[in-house]
């Protein structure tokens, strides 16, 4: 018997031997952050935002500010030479973390590698070839006129890395970037990424010495972590916790607007959604204020248009189909939908007005908003059958046309250029255009905009697109996504960048004890 207990004790001791104690933190200023998405590997092409935005190891040629303006970063100026050629001039004073100088060759390497390994990047850039003119000048030739090219270079997957980041066989070694922080270590098991201060950063001095980013995919875990003090900074805590966390003395939680949208797609191929009045009625039926207040706990802003007024290209004079139950009911009645059998659902020629509503659970706000929409539609007599499926299953159903409404999240400013969203959602054959919407006026405007260089002219063309498509209402915007940033009060200087994928730190940040 004693033997058994000895054996068990040995077991426990063996357990303990597996562990190494967590590295102790000395008097350096270390920022512990918890990120929303996993960081799979050290290759910045795999999850570019972890490197360009969350740890500032790499930098893109072009950056943006809160007003969605494109600003120079590693590139100083850019101009279009002809309709398929863009020329970029680069900074002269930038050094990589291995002390080699940034040249146009490294930029060419980064862009070509990005286009080769990342299908989405290839689609944005549409590279024909890249010519290095001199060490600070680079020319990018595209296959088709691409007015969006400069904006595409804002993508964090295109954070510039040195050619020395890969070995002679092309295998990735470690990310050597130009940013205010340099890569220190990556734990293959826990995916914790540690970066430390780059003393040679071209942009000036940095206050923080080290950033340790731990991926925590569960929002509750992030909330508990910040509450307990395990991390100093995190984002996207559960919406109902924001107020509570903010009220804790040493913490603050602020809500910011993002260009993500809660978008309800309508299948215009199905009756009765092919009737524009029905689509308008659906939009009139949604009480966006209530949804944002009660379902999203204020994390978000009600909107019936995709672009918020803070975006310079937004057409602020389009018609809004905001909450108006009476008009909704009127439109339905005028179209012949009446509740003849008194069961609460409208019907016409014996068929009830029943629509399927699909959504997916990966983003926390989608399912509750969808559930709330079911209730809103019930008010005007439409029965919505909610199904929560994986995104893959929804894609399948879309292909088969087996859907009426889909609620999903989309970033209308993934590339800070309105062409990105409008082309994909309303252009013929666009990848977000699920109903084969094809309006020749819209297509003409979109093509013209892609071939124009002047930004203001383009914006005007695209504003017209917005007004046409808002009227056509092939989809309904419910609200803009909000994001809650929770941090200890000791973390200073954070400025929210709406073009970031979830969050982007900035070099001015500091930690005050």
């Amino acid at each position: 018997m004693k033997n058994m207990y000895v054996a068990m004790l040995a077991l426990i001791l063996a357990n303990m031997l597996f562990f190494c104690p967590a590295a102790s933190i000395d008097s350096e200023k270390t920022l512990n952050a918890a990120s929303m998405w996993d960081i799979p590997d050290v290759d910045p092409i795999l999850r570019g935002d972890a490197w360009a935005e969350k740890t500032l190891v790499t930098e893109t040629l072009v950056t943006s500010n809160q007003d969605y303006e494109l600003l120079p970063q590693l590139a100083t100026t850019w101009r279009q030479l002809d309709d398929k050629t863009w020329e970029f001039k680069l900074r002269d004073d930038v050094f990589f973390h291995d002390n080699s100088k940034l040249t146009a060759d490294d930029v060419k390497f980064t862009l070509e590698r990005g286009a080769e390994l990342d299908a989405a990047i290839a689609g944005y850039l549409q590279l024909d070839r890249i010519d290095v003119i001199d060490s600070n000048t680079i020319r990018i030739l595209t296959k088709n006129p691409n007015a969006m090219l400069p904006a595409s270079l804002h993508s964090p997957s295109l954070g510039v890395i040195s050619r020395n980041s890969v070995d002679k066989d092309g295998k990735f070694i470690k990310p050597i970037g130009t940013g205010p922080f340099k890569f220190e270590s990556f734990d293959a098991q826990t995916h914790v990424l540690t970066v430390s201060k780059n003393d040679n950063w071209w942009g000036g001095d940095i206050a923080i010495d080290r950033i340790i980013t731990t991926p925590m995919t569960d929002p509750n875990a992030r909330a508990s972590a910040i509450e307990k003090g395990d991390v100093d900074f995190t984002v996207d805590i559960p919406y109902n916790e924001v107020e509570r966390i903010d009220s804790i003395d040493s913490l603050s939680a602020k809500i910011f607007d993002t260009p993500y949208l809660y978008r309800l797609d309508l299948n215009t191929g199905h009756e009765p959604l092919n009737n524009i009045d029905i689509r308008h009625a659906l939009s009139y039926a949604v009480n966006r204020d209530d949804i944002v207040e009660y379902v999203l706990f204020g994390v978000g802003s009600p909107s019936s248009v995709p672009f918020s007024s803070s975006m310079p290209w937004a057409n602020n004079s389009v018609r809004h189909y905001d909450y108006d139950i009476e008009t909704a009911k009127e439109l339905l009645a005028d179209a012949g939908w009446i509740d003849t059998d008194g069961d609460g659902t409208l019907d016409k020629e014996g068929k009830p007005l029943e629509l399927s509503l699909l959504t997916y659970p990966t983003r926390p706000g989608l399912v509750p908003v969808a559930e709330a929409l079911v209730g809103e539609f019930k008010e005007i007599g439409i029965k919505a059958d909610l199904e929560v499926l994986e995104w893959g299953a929804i894609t399948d159903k879309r292909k088969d046309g087996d859907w009426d409404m889909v609620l999903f999240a989309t970033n209308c400013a993934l590339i800070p250029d309105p062409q990105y969203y409008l082309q994909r959602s309303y252009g013929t054959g666009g990848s977000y255009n699920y109903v084969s919407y094809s309006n020749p006026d819209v297509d003409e405007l979109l093509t013209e905009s892609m071939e124009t260089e002047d930004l203001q002219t383009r914006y005007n063309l695209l504003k017209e697109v917005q007004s046409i498509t808002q009227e056509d209402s092939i989809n309904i915007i419910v609200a803009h996504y909000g994001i809650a940033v929770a941090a200890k009060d000791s973390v200073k200087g954070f400025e929210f960048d709406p073009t970031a994928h979830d969050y982007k730190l900035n070099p001015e940040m500091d930690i005050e004890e």
Partner: protein
Amino acid sequence: MLRYLLKRSAFMVVTVLAVCAMTFGLMNIIPGGTAELILKHTFLELEEIPTDEQIAEISSRYNLHDPLYIQFSRWMGNALHGDLGTSYILKRPVTYLILLRLPATMMLALAAMSIAVLIGVPLGVLCALKENKLADYILRIATLIGVSMPGFWLALLLILVFSVTLKLFPVAGYGNISYLVLPAVALSAHTTAITLRMVRTGMLEVMNQPYIVFAMSKGLPTRYIVTKHAMRNALLPVITVLGLHLGHMLGGAVVIETIFAWPGVGSLLVNSIMARDVPVVQGCVLTIVGVFVIINLLVDLLYTYIDPRIKYV
């Protein structure tokens, strides 16, 4: 004995491969074509839709158009050489990914098992000795609750009480031993409860045996009787159950690993199923089932050691 081992091993291999075949079949019925889902994971945007060219390129790169049985035989051939393929999403060899995470899961399982044994056995004996007294009743009610509670609720309650409110342990993650405590306790609840009850039942049975009564009437101290005679016999069914549970723990820790962000094979499996990362799913299933089957064999062999009456042919 040797014949038994050989026969058993053969069956084991067949079982494991059959399970893998079944998994492979399942993964390919899953809606959302594999190619689309692979591409989806390379995009920054969850909802971006891949073009047909991109799908065609990925399909040819990973030979996704071949008939299923060919794809599976190819996988099996490679697996027998130790090559489990490369993850579509994480772009690393599957073997590497699993070996990276296997220690974490084993650690968790062993810790939970240790807790179950260290707490379940002595308390079970205690209950048996103090049958129908207050302590017995309290512990029996506690085990009943422990077995009947939904696992993740217990885990969440533990976090709420011990981590957030009392600030004794970290919320989630992987590091030193304090990160292990809550997940191990949550995982062990079920097994501890069952162990306690089985030990109690076994002990009660044994205590009524004539030879025990005889020993007691001889005047031998209770503790001596318990440890030297009773426990040996009572422990046999317990060992079976523990063996069974260790196997289930390896897979069933999935929920616990997810809540506590514990980087083990279970959470890798769940994420891979959701992501349709077929090679990783195959690899994880192979590992988990393989370990489970091996443990069963070990338990059966342990039987022969403990109870010499049992022999295998």
